[in-house]
Every structure is written in C-alpha cells, then in structure tokens.
C-alpha cells in the first residue's frame, strides 16, 4: 500500500518536474510561459501518434520533442521578437494546442479513438536496489524518463547558476536593458531558454502518453502545465525547490489512487480537485514573489 503510493507519487511527479525544470530555465530569462500546458499536450499527442505509426518509442519521443519545440518557437517569436503580453500569448498557445491536437486526433484516429493504445515504456529496475523494501520500487524501478527527470535537477541547477549561459540568462531576466547595454543578446538568450523548455515539456507530454496512460484523450494534460508553473513559484525559482514541490504535487495526485482503496464514501471529485486546490493553498502559504527574477513577465522590446 505505502509502496504503491510512493511509487505512484514519484511517477506522477516526473512529468510535472520535467515541465517545471523547463519553465525554471525560461523564467530565469524573464519570460513566463503559460503555453507550457499546450506544449505538453502537443508532446503527448505527437509522441503517441509517432509511436503508434512507427512502433518505436524513440521516434515517439523525438516527435514529442519536435512538436513542443515548434510550439515554443512560435511562442518565442511572439513574446520575444514582438514583445507582446506573455500571459495572453501563452493562453492563445494553449488554445492552439488544444485545437490542433483535437483536430488531428479526430482526423487520424476517428471520433471513437479506435482502441488507440501502444506498448508503454517499461520500467528499468536498477538491480538489487529495486528490491529494497518500501522505497525500492519507488526510486529504482521506474521508467527511463523518471530517472532522467531527477538526474536533470542538478544539471539544470548547474546550467543556471554555474555556467556563463546561465549568468547571461539571469541577467536577461533581471535587467534586460542592462544586459542589452552590456552587449548580451537578450532575444537570443530567451529564444535558447524557450527551445530548451520545449524539449523538456515535450518529454513531459510524451511521458503522459508513452509511460503513463498509453493512450490519448483530448485535453489530457489536464492542467499539469499550469501546476508546473506553480511548482516553479512554490520551489522559489531553485532547481531543488522545484524538485521538492513536484514531489509534493505528485503525492497529491497519487492520493486519489491510494484513497480509493477506502471505498466510495469520499466523492471522487474531491480527489480530482485536490491538486488544483493544493496549488492555490501552497501559493498562498509561500506567498510573495520576492525570489522571482525582476523582469519576469515584462515584455522587453529592443527598439
């Protein structure tokens, strides 16, 4: 029971963590990407579709990354080069993804969905470690994307705080005018951040279809992209904070499976609403935005 819950919590945390690490990079550069929800949805759909037609999980992952990167490139074109309102543009990107995946889904697989399932990614048990009681299966018997998500935590942290790119990116996020005056290419830095985030949110989306649900349902990202946005805030714009917050939300989502064992006395809607309500409560507890990059969300036009 506890073993299953821990395992499920980490499995639910992984896609949120992948997406949130991408959002962390983007936000350090001063951009808020609400379109992350749409990028995940595109990753989920195109990852599944490519796998369905080719039978190859690798091609599926590549397609998921390609679709999400393309969507983020469109977002970058609008918010970086045209310096428009990032929240509104991001919302439009989400609608675009919802529409495009819906249209393609019906077109390719018909209205009924035609038993659209694939052979999912298998868990990779790490030898004897996976047999440790209680924590073994949760930590060492997951699929490759779960390991990747957690391995990326220190890597993304180092990228942001230990490399020249990270330093320049943070400058673009704190004081874009000053960064520009120093000769840093603010637009290019923000583009690079958004393309990296595209890769990560594509993987996060692919996780939903290739490792978790094994099928596609319209709008199946179900707000996980928005949860990832909140995770960055709750994690105080730090890689390890983001990891911890992702685990918390993963646990909240896993609760619905754990508590269903207690019977139907509790309405299922409570569990479905729990991650979203928890997000609001967590944001209220953490409060404030003092840790955020100064220029976060402000359009910067290099005129």
């Amino acid at each position, binding site marked *: 029971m506890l073993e299953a819950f821990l395992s499920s919590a980490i499995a639910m945390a992984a896609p949120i963590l992948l997406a949130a690490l991408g959002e962390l990079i983007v936000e350090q550069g001063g951009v808020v990407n609400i379109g992350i929800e749409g990028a995940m949805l595109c990753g989920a759909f195109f990852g599944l579709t490519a796998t369905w037609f080719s039978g190859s999980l690798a091609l599926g992952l590549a397609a998921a990354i390609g679709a999400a990167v393309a969507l983020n490139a469109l977002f970058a074109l609008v918010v970086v080069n045209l310096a428009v309102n990032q929240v509104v543009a991001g919302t439009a990107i989400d609608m675009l993804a919802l529409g495009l995946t819906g249209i393609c889904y019906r*077109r390719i697989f018909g209205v009924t969905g035609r038993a659209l399932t694939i052979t999912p990614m298998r868990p990779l048990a790490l030898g004897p470690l996976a047999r440790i009681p209680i924590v073994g299966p949760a930590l060492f018997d997951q699929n490759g994307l779960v390991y990747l998500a957690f391995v990326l935590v220190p890597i993304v942290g180092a990228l942001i705080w230990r490399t020249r790119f990270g330093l320049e990116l943070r400058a673009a996020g704190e004081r874009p005018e000053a960064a520009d005056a120093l000769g840093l290419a603010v637009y290019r830095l923000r583009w690079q951040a958004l393309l990296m985030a595209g890769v990560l949110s594509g993987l996060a989306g692919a996780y939903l279809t290739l490792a978790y649900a094994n099928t596609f349902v319209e709008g199946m990202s179900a707000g996980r992209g928005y949860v990832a946005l909140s995770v960055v805030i709750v994690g105080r714009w730090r890689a390890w904070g983001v990891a911890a917050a992702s685990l918390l939300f993963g646990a909240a989502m896993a609760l619905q499976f754990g508590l269903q064992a207690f019977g139907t006395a509790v309405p299922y809607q409570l569990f479905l609403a729990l991650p979203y309500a928890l997000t609001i409560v967590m944001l209220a507890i953490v409060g404030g935005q003092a840790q955020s990059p100064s220029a976060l969300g402000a359009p910067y036009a290099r005129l």
Partner: protein
Amino acid sequence: MSAPRSAPARGGSAIARLAAAIRPVAALILFAVVIAIVLALVLLTLGASPVEVFADLWRGAFGDWLALTDTLVKSTPLIFTGLAVAVAFQGALWNIGAEGQLLIGALAAGAIGPALGGWPHGAAIVAMLAAGAGGGALWGAIAGGLRARREVNEVISTIMLNFVAAQVLSFAVHGPLMEASGAFPASAPIAAAATFDVYLAPSRLNFGMLLAAGLAVACYLGLFHTAAGFQLRALGRNRRASAFFGIPIARMTIGTLALAGAIAGVGGAVQVSAITHRLYETLSPGWGYEAIAVALVARLNPLAIVPAAVLFGALDNGSQAMQRAAGVSPELVYVIQALVILTLLAFDASATGALRAAILGAPAAGPDDPGAPPAALPPAAPIATRDA
C-alpha cells in the same frame, strides 16, 4: 524605452505621416491575410474545401432567422465573460478565470432555482441573478484576495479555480443537487417562475441579451466616466505609481476581481434561467477562455464587447453547422480563437514599433510615434508586479 536609436523621421513629410497612420491598419490586414491562408491550408490538409467551409459557416451563423437569433443567444454568455475579462484586464489583473466564475454563478442560481416555485416571476429572476452574481463574485474575490494579501499571481490562481469549479459543479450534479430520479448527472429543473420569457418564438431570444448589452453600457460608463474606473485604469498602467497617488490597491484588486466574477456569474445564471433550466457538467463549452479573444478583439472596450461577442457567437454557431456539413472538427474553433488572439497581439506590437523592428530588423519609431495608436493592453508586467 529610452534606448538610443537612429533619429526617426518625426513630423516630416505628409507621406511619412500617412505611412505612420496606416501602418497598424496595414499590419492588421497583413495578419488577417496570414490567418486566412493558414486556415485555408489547415482545411485543405483536412481534405475540406475552404470555400465550402466558409459558406457553411456563414449559413449556420446568419443564414436564416433561426440561425441569426441563435447566434445572438450563443453570444450572450460571451458578452458576460468578455466583460469579466475586459474589466479585469483594464486594471492589468489577468483574469483567466471567467470560466470558473461563470460555472459557480450558474451553480448558485441552479441550486436555488428549483425552490423558487411560489415566488413572483420578477422576484424569482432577481433572486437567480443575485445568486449568480454572488457565486461569481466569491470565486473572483478568492483570486483577488490572494493577490492583494499574499501576492499570489492571479493568472495561476484563476486557472486553478477554473479546475476546482468544474469539480465542484460535477460533485453537485452527481450528489446533493442531482435530480430526483437519479438517472442523469443533472440537477432538478428550476421553477417556472425563475425562467426567462422567450421573445419571438420559435427563436430562443430572451431577456439575457438585453441584460448583457445593458451591463456592457454600465461597464463602459463605470470604466471611463467614474473615479473608480479611472483609478482601475491607472492601476493597469502603473501599479507602483498608483500606490504613490493613494489609490487603494488592495481594495481595488479584490473589488475588481470580485466584480469581474460577479459579471461572469450573472452570465452563468442567465444561461440557467434562459436556456438550460437545470445544471449539468458540460454547461459551458469554454466561454471563459473564448472571452479572452472576445475582450482583445474589443480592445478591452466594454461597448465593443457586444459586437465582438456576436462575432464569436456566430463563429460558434456557424461552426456547428459546418461540422455537420463539412465534417470539420469542432476544435477548429479553438484554433481560430488562438490565431485571432495572436494576430491582435501582433497588431499591438505594431503600435509599439516592435513588429516593424522584428520584420525589418531596424530600429522602430517607438511608442511616441505620432501616428501610432496606444496598445490596447495595459503594459504592466503581469508576474513581477510587487505592491509597494
């Protein structure tokens, strides 16, 4: 932006002035053409004829009397949610939560509706609308309070509240409010006294459209002809400066989001009173999100919300006919909405000069260009605005 730039030709020849004046219009036309081409390409790849699809769209929206009146009926909730978005956006409060506010408003109205049997018609209607306003206001005020007291970004809180509202409604129609037979996840029908009269039967035209239009006028007067409206718009332009001028930021924030919620909530109540007469889960097809496109097309002007909402109502209504005739997915409407929003944002960018800078790679004339209209969206940073 005071970055150095090569001297712009300011106040020069008549041709230069004319060029400056038509640039935004030209940009809009350019992007409208781009959108039409993109849409036509999408339709062609789907194997549908763009001409036929647009013809079906038109027939479905305006083809005959019933289509026309149904377009107006489908526009009504969009006027309410469009106003809820526009009023909040004027204050740079990014209310993405009109969807949830409408659902909770509908829930409140639908909950009391069945119990209003013995009431006089007028009183029952007022009670329904008041319940809707109250429910929506509560939902908006949660986001407002969190923003004002805990600096919780309203974009995320309103999105999350949308998801929570959907689950609350789902719970209500599966649980406490479920109709007596228990066969369907829907509430009991509201009392006859609480339903709107239909004008011009067999159409579904009702009092809701008039109410929505009246509310649009009220919002316009409130925003542009009252001190509070001025303060809200000042807040939208510069939150910090507004604080220095003594505008009560916390109260404005909570009040504005509560008001926006109340407007969307009334929209929910109207939908229950006039059209559905009961609650069910799929009450709204996404009016709260579509409202963002409506508000942007209207340039956040409440009076322009009415025609903008009719435009999108026609799109919704026409697309249903289009689906039946051309077999095009209903999701095409989302794509159109998204493209409309992105186009209008690019149009805004043409006003600030960013569009030209992006296309030509050259320094733009800047926002103080004499021919350039102001951008419709308040420029304040959406996330990092800290209250002084």
